[in-house]
């Protein structure tokens, strides 16, 4: 039949559908499995504490989904209250991936305790988080994660990640929608970049100001200033500021109001 229909000498010129099985152009996947839920996070360490903060706005496009969706989590604590947790995780980017990642890391930290009879160190947890992210290298968790806790010496520890698991221990890190607004502020105010000791040299040959761990009150104020400024200039940031402070005494969680416009 097919040969008949393909015969070149046939007089008919009118085409009709379903005449032969056609090699149709491949239809592309129209489904995109990611979305950006906006928001921003920020972590700073001190000599005996670490602070992890994030705004609580959830967006999709120009819509505000909710004004109260926290993105800083206690890891390894009680399911409902988070009691007993000694590690903090913040996730910003695609919220569904962020939740999945949080739950996986939480399970890992709990299983570690059940199996080894001791709490997982922050360093070990940091390495494990990198592995979890890299395992999904070709379908990544679309999040920027920051992990915080206290190291073996009791000093504040902060680890920041890219979506596929590259990580680094740092003094401070901003992530998410307003990271490009907050990070330069942190460079200047935490690591004292571009700050010099007045009168320490001739002309412009001044001695740079050395970075050293800041006291807790200063850091708290820096975090709040960073976010009030970010809210002014970024539409995806606002509503409330969630701040978690981890010290040897445990985790303290406070909420501050931010502009809701």
């Amino acid at each position, binding site marked *: *039949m097919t040969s*008949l*229909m393909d015969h070149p000498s*046939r007089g*008919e010129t*009118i*085409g*009709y*559908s*379903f*005449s032969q*099985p*056609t090699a*149709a*152009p*491949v*239809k592309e*996947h*129209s*489904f995109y*499995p*990611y*979305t950006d*839920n906006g928001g921003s996070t920020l972590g700073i360490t001190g000599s005996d504490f670490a602070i992890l903060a994030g705004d609580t706005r*959830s967006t*999709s496009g120009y*819509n505000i*989904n*909710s*004004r*109260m*969706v926290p993105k800083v989590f206690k890891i390894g604590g009680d399911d409902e209250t988070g009691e007993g947790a000694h590690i903090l995780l913040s996730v910003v980017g*695609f*919220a*569904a991936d962020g*939740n*999945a990642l949080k739950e996986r890391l939480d399970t890992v930290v709990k299983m570690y305790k059940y199996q080894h009879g001791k709490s997982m160190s922050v360093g070990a947890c940091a390495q494990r988080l990198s592995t979890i992210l890299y395992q999904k290298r070709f*379908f990544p968790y679309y999040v920027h994660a920051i992990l915080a806790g206290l190291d073996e010496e009791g000093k504040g520890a902060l680890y920041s990640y890219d979506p596929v698991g590259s990580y680094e221990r740092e003094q401070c890190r901003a992530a998410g929608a307003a990271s490009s607004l907050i990070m330069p502020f942190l460079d200047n105010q935490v690591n004292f970049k571009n700050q010099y000791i007045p009168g320490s040299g001739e002309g412009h040959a001044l001695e740079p100001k050395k970075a050293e761990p800041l006291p807790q009150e200063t850091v708290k104020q820096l975090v709040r200033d960073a976010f009030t400024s970010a809210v002014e200039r970024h539409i995806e940031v606002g509503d409330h500021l969630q701040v978690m402070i981890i010290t040897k005494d445990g985790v303290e969680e406070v909420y501050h109001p931010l502009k*809701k416009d």
Partner: protein
Amino acid sequence: MNHFPEAWGRPRDDVYGAYNHSYLQTSGPKTHTMSPAVTGTSVVGIKFNGGVALATDNLASYGSLARFTDVKRLRVFGNQAVVGFGGDVSDMQYIDRLLESIDIRENYSTHGNMLNAKNLHTYLAKVFYKRRSEFNPLWNHVLVAGFDGEGKPFLSSADLLGTTFSAPHLATGFGAHLAVPILRRLFPDEKPIEEVTREQAVSALKDCLKVLFYRDARSLDKYSIAVITQEGIDLKEDEQLESQSWAFAERIKGYGAQTN
């Protein structure tokens, strides 16, 4: 007449245009699950003192065609939760069957179905997230209403990507643009839900549905509304929007044949 019998009864290209064969693919990835077919529009929900109210209209559209005008998009789970479905209707029916089997299984357990709205929402969000991760999404955006483990009113959203969020008032689809601003104005954040009465909540939902019917082209004036309180679920599925005023319509200019 075309004298090739194979052509008889088939749509002629010069009359109907060539058929788009990308819809009849025999090889390559499955694509019909990659876009919704028959869809429902907005779901609107609000918490009030002692409960939650949820509403949808009764329309299932096929593209721009108002295909089914009597489709119930509020589904009751157990005796304590209601799910409002937006998006693909066949996926809604699949999820409904899924929930029904869970309800039956739970009712065989010692204590009966103990799953509350919060549990149900967690479950649905995980189903959505798993399916999106398999690139085989369930094309829905749902609101789950009921009570959490502590008996407090619960209202939360889950969508085809597995994204979840909760707020005192929520709306999916077009309602996110039209209904949420109305609800936020009526019940601002400073006003706790304990100060919102059941009557206020229900009347606000009706207002929202009315605005949606005015401006959402894929909506209907027949709707369903569920009010969930500790006393039980009050579900009405054959409601009619009342006191519409189309007076504003004659002032709309800039469309159609009018010249000035």
